[in-house]
């Protein structure tokens, strides 16, 4: 963030990585709250992106997301992160119900040459705000999660990334024949994040 304050509309790789990883943190919190993965009482309201956002107060979840975002920003700064997926699955059977897919396109020139780009903070915030609103409103069309669920986060990285000690390789945890809803995107001019939620359709809908 500090490096981004050099000039208002100049955005550096580091700043962009910070914005994107912070976005993941808030988006994950919002999904966990809105999809009822953790009890309502374990969330506290804060103001962010011009919206009231809910952040978990559960220490375990908090540290998980903090560890996640710090690792993500490291990869984002290296331009090695291709995608982040938040998976919601059944606690009992591990069946995957929802995949919140954030694909990331990184401007390789910025990573390689260390140049900066121009985009105002305000504009990025407005784009993120639109995504956050969509996440909050997603409960209107997503099927009810009527059994206890857990979540996991998958990071799709380049293969030349050394796997950190705390991470393991995972399968994609895909849903067969999912319904997909594309949400808004945001672009820092360095990282472009496309949001998409795919979910298991209710069987009775057929």
């Amino acid at each position, binding site marked *: 963030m500090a490096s981004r304050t050099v000039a208002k509309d100049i955005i550096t790789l580091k700043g962009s990585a910070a914005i994107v990883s912070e976005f993941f943190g808030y988006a994950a919190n919002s999904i966990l709250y809105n999809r009822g*993965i*953790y*009890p*309502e*009482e*374990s969330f506290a309201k804060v103001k962010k992106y011009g919206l009231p956002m809910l952040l978990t107060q*559960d220490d*375990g*979840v908090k540290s*998980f*997301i903090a*560890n*996640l975002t710090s690792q993500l920003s490291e990869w984002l700064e290296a331009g090695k992160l*291709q*995608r982040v997926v938040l998976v919601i699955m059944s*606690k*009992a059977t591990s069946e995957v119900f929802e995949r919140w897919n954030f694909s990331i396109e990184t401007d390789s020139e910025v990573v390689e040459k260390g140049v900066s780009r121009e985009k105002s903070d305000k504009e990025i915030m407005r784009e993120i705000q639109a995504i956050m609103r969509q996440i909050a409103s997603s409960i209107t069309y997503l099927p009810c999660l*009527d*059994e*206890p*669920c*857990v*979540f*996991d*986060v*998958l*990071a*799709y*990285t*380049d*293969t*030349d*990334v050394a*796997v950190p000690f*705390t*991470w*393991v*390789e*995972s*399968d*994609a945890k895909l849903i067969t024949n999912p319904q997909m809803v594309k949400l808004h995107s945001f672009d820092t001019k360095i990282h472009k994040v496309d949001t998409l939620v795919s979910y298991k359709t209710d069987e009775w809908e057929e």
Partner: protein
Amino acid sequence: MDAGSFSSTSLSSSSKTLSRRPLQEHVLPRHHHQEHVLPRHHHPSRQHGDRFIPDRSSMDFDMARYLLTEGRKEKENTAVSSPSKEAYRKQLAETLMMNRTRILAFKSKPPTPVEGVFQESSIDNVSTTQIRASKPRRYIPQSAERTLDAPEIVDDYYLNLLDWGSSNVLAIALGSTVYLWDASDGSTSELVTVDEENGPVTSVSWAPDGRHIAVGLNSSIVQLWDPTANRKLRTLQGGHNSRVGALAWNNHILTTGGMDSLINNNDVRIRSHIVETYRGHQQEVCGLKWSGSGQQLASGGNDNLLYIWDRSANTQTQWLHRFEDHTAAVKALAWCPFQSNLLASGGGAGDRCIKFWNTHTGACLNSVDTGSQVCSLLWSKTERELLSSHGFTQNQLTLWKYPSMVKIAELNGHTSRVLFMAQSPDGCTVASAAGDETLRFWNVFGTPEVSKPATKTASTGPFANINHIR
């Protein structure tokens, strides 16, 4: 001249290429190439055809054919070449995306949501779904699955004329004859018809091995039969001086209850077969049941008394408990298969109650007025359910949930009191014989497929009891 032929061919080719857009870029250069090679040599003089009259000589059929067929070939070629393109694209995608992508996840998973108030509701959800999963609401047919005629059945509350053996053969006494009905193939056979001076038959009981039947007679005699050889093995006499209406097996001990109010334990292996005599009743003994462990015997009589006799007690002929709570004859007795020391007993027309006893402490646990004579009681081998059969007014079978004693089902069909009930070896089907001279089969305790594993557990039940006691 060159220009003319060129313009005409280029017109035709352009119209063709227009109709075949994707090939445009491939066709045109070739066309130009042909233009230079072929027309110059072959058609130098045919330059000015009337543009309204088709001039076949000025039309370049070779060219047209070339364009048509070559174009088609080209189309096919692209179709042929597309797999390789596809493969290339795939390879490209792989090198760009797949091979360069690694899916990673945290080793330490986020905490599972089990804290807070939500916990209760989530656990509720889990437990209810588990209950739903493990105990789907079963359908209880309201009508009999099968009805057989039972002519000349003696309509006497104090007798016990129906038993279903472990060999899956049902024995029923009709008048002076004992019939066997093989439940596996539905075949009927006659075991014995006793002569007039001994008959009618007042009780039948299968030995636990399913290979011997005890037949109690009106004349106080008890006969042992081998149904496979259709041979009488033994006659037990001298134990009673009036009809034997109640029989109960406990391994090699056959307990007989008589109208003379006596209860005898007969060791069928030895010559002097009466090993114990329980004296307590003052009137006819009509209900006799050994507990699953074989330790306790419950006996009910026309004197409205219910006795519990304990084999392990040193004073073997002294009762363990004497219950006076019933206000009518006690015939219906059933030991609970899932809870040792729990006995259900049903009273006659003047009592109409099902009572539950802890035979260890002698406490009456519950009493339910059923509204009509209780003729027979059976516990489900799989569920915590009790089936009772009744007399006037409904002549119904009632299925109760235990211990809540909520009525689950009432099965109607019999037109007279349902005197006797017997349970199939798998515990699913119940046979009931009534004063209306019918034998009906009810699929009341679930389907055989469902209860197969449960039958196993039920069969281990008695052994579990033995382990507890010894």
